[in-house]
């Protein structure tokens, strides 16, 4: 299964991953539009990112979520009606929404953030 693997212990909290993600998908440097989030946590950092578990899929009211053969959970933005059930369904808060955007978003395991990470805290696992 393809997914992004985060090693929070290596994270320096620089936020480069967040910037790279929002730039890649929404053409702006805005961590609120990033599908990976870094938060300070007990002197270190915690990285929140989708592990492609698929628990969100069953509740999608527009049948816009599906798991690709490589394991990545994908949102079909054309079918999505922006109900945000998926955001609620992900109890680990790996599914995000932004009020400027018509549809919610999540990590698609593209690896752009991993390339941007200077601390080697992120990698793609196949």
């Amino acid at each position, binding site marked *: 299964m393809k997914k992004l693997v985060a090693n929070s212990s290596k994270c320096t909290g620089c936020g480069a991953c967040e910037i790279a993600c929002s730039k890649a998908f929404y053409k702006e440097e805005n961590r609120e539009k990033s599908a990976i989030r870094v938060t300070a946590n007990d002197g270190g950092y915690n990285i929140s990112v989708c592990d492609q578990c698929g628990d969100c899929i069953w509740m999608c009211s527009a049948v816009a979520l599906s798991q690709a053969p490589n394991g990545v959970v994908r949102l079909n933005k054309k079918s999505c009606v922006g109900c*945000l059930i998926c955001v609620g369904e992900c109890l680990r808060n790996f599914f995000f929404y932004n009020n400027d955007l018509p549809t919610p978003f999540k990590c698609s395991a593209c690896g752009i953030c991993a390339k941007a990470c200077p601390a080697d805290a992120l990698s793609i696992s196949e």
Partner: protein
Amino acid sequence: MPENVLKVETEYSDHIPSREEIAAMKAKHRVLATYSYEPSTIERGYNSRSLYISVGGDYDTSEQDPLTSSAKGDNGVVIGEKAVTDLMKDKFTGGKGFDLYHLWKSVKEDTHWNAPENNVVISPGPLAGITQYAGTGKSIVCSISPLTGLPFDSNVGGFFGPFLKFSGFDALELQGKSDEELIIFIDGNAHTISVETAPDESIDSHILCEQLTEMYAENEADKMNISVVASGRAAEHSYIGCLNFSFFDKRRNCVRIKQAGRGGIGAVFRHKKIKAVVARYRGVHGDSNNPVNKKLINDAGVRFHKQMAQLDTKQNNMRKIGTANIIEVMDRYDLLPTHNFQYGAHPETPKISSKVYIEKYVTQNVPDGCWYGCSMSCAKAADNFELRTGAYKGSKVCVDGPEYENAGGLGSNVGCFDPHWILEANFYCDTYGVDTISHGTMTAFAQECYQRGLYNLDDTEGLDMRWGNGYALNELMHQMVAGDGFGVIVGKGVRQQKRIFAERFGKVAPEYEHMLEGQAWQSVEEPIIDKPIPTAHFNKHLVDCEALKDFGYDDEKVLNEIKGTSLENAGANNDSAFIAHPKRWEKIPGIPTISREEIADWPAGKPYYSDDPVCPYTNGRPWVKMTPEQVAEMEEFGMENKGLEYSEYLMKESLAQQGGYALCNKGPQHDEAWLIFMDMVNNQIPTFEDKAEALHYFPMFRTWFGLLGLCKLPWNDVTPVNNKNEAEPHKFPEHVQNYFDIYEGVTGFKHNEASMVRQSERVYTFQRVFILRMGSGMREHDMPPTRSLGPISAREYLSREERYDEQLLEKIGVNPADMSTEKKIEVIMDYRKDQFRQLVDAVYKRRGWTPNGIVKLEKLIELEMDLPELVRIVRPHLKAEGYWPSGTEFAKYDSM
């Protein structure tokens, strides 16, 4: 976490039409009128215009708001637009408010349900159509009801309301009467409307909705953008017609339907010869409602979605079984109406419990929202359900439900404890277009009349009216479709049944027997009276049911338990709807035919013939009027008020709920107030004033859902973790705040409890004056049938003797030790009737009404609802009752 189901395996190919069939049907359409309109932008929840369609006929429209533009077509069809004014938004809000506003202007004081000017108005409300919060796709439908003769509102899910709104209209009026079968098609993307003849399509909803979805969708993906409003064939011969609102279920690859069940609006729809209204709208997204502040809506939506994800499996299991989760809970609290509201529980309830439905019937792991974004997802369905009776016998179908009310109405209340028959009846009610709740309550009444010997097998033409015969329960509906048989009488509702039974089903008095010219009055033997048939019988399809084992259910044990009790001689275990086959009667020459006007003075017991436009069906036997005693007996247990059948909760032990039902503007439906737990279980509203306050706040709060296009269920069918720490936990303040947030998000207006209640109270008060205008709305009309107040028979009393004896001692202060059961019933019922009287006094006072239930002028002024047309209705009543205010500031209202 459930597995990810993207497809449900279904076997519905036999009723999904081929492209060739669809093309042939469409080729038969003749377009009567078309209309093109300009697209609009929704501002603060409103398009600021509504759609008006007359399907033909001659009637007065002079009191209605003018059409701002229109097109006339063939057969008298008119399509046009009306402005939604600031006054409408301010005083009527939307949804039910807009419906009643248009309905008032369409009808006159003497308008009957089947007059062409009667209007079926559908409005989704300003919040309807947002996708981020649960339960936001509701439409509210209003019309003059055939059951009550009064304005009636019924709410419904499905995609039609949001599609209508996104197509550009805040409401849809359907007026007039057509001579030909019609379909109305609203294309919200092309901005066109057409009215077309449709001779070949089915009338039954599960077929028709598939046909029209196939016909109007451009391709497979487009099916999700089609919603159909339809009814069914039973709506044509009954007064309990419902409207089905469809949506396409992509996972099941079939069309689902939700019901505007109550009040018989489907009968109005079919009387107008409208087969269907179809809306198509492609492009729903999170901004379709053009909200002022999307953040408020998104945040509230996600908060709620998370609660559902975290709490539902620990609380109500709405996602697994919907409202049916409470079947066994109601039984446990003695609230599950059983055998026509005689009892509140039954030993066989485990067989129809939610756990059995989950295990055996209802498809799991599928989100069943009836509009996008409903994380409560309670619109469950039983898939691949094979029918045993009727026109679709052998077909595998998708049954919407069972809802709790269906299990109560089609199950326990009619003595049917077989989950299959409840689902079969549920399916046929929906596709034939009848209301499951009224059907259940009116059947239970007919069954009790039969079992009391008020009529016999000749009257039912052999139909088995004992408790629990599933074949017979479904046969009643098949007869409604045919327009022939005893089911046609039953389908007219409890109020009409009482009248029809009283006119036709009396016994011939000895002095008139010679008029029968030697024919035996009763041609078949009665097998029921004094011949007990054990009710419990294990259903073969439940033999391996794990849920029943969990309940410890044992058929033999139940049989022994009920031996000697009133439940023993109840219940049929037949494999046929009929237990006799009497012949239809030839006319007897010596018996006179009289006019309807003469019936009133005709002696009881003397045979006659007459006609009955409400129910032309007769088996040919001469009619005989019942005795006054028999008529009075039926009044005691005929569970209707204002002409509407009671919904499926036993209210005997909750005074507040007795009021919640009987004081309801449209008739006894619990959507104004459900106070049983607050009142009976938790004792949170002990005084009359407490109860009156609850019977003010909750009807207003619940009216608010109907104004805005919201579903009530997400309000309190999941409980926030911190709810118990709130000052007023019964109001679910966190969820109320969510509603205020999404209201502000859509409209920009920040609500609080007072402004919310005021907004509702305007429409609620308007509806009260409206029913007064139509000849109801006074104290006498708010009086319930005696059984709703307590035990009316020894059977009922003795079944809960300990409870009632304790009440005699502790509440009334009399010692039951030396009293006969009859005396105990008399004393306890006198006490309860007095309690109810005091409750009505307190509620009227709290609502600003006179002791006769008339809205005071001061109340209208306070609510800024002192509209001339309302003042003119209440004025003569207030003057007669001595409540017309005298100060000079009121002088202008004298000449309005």
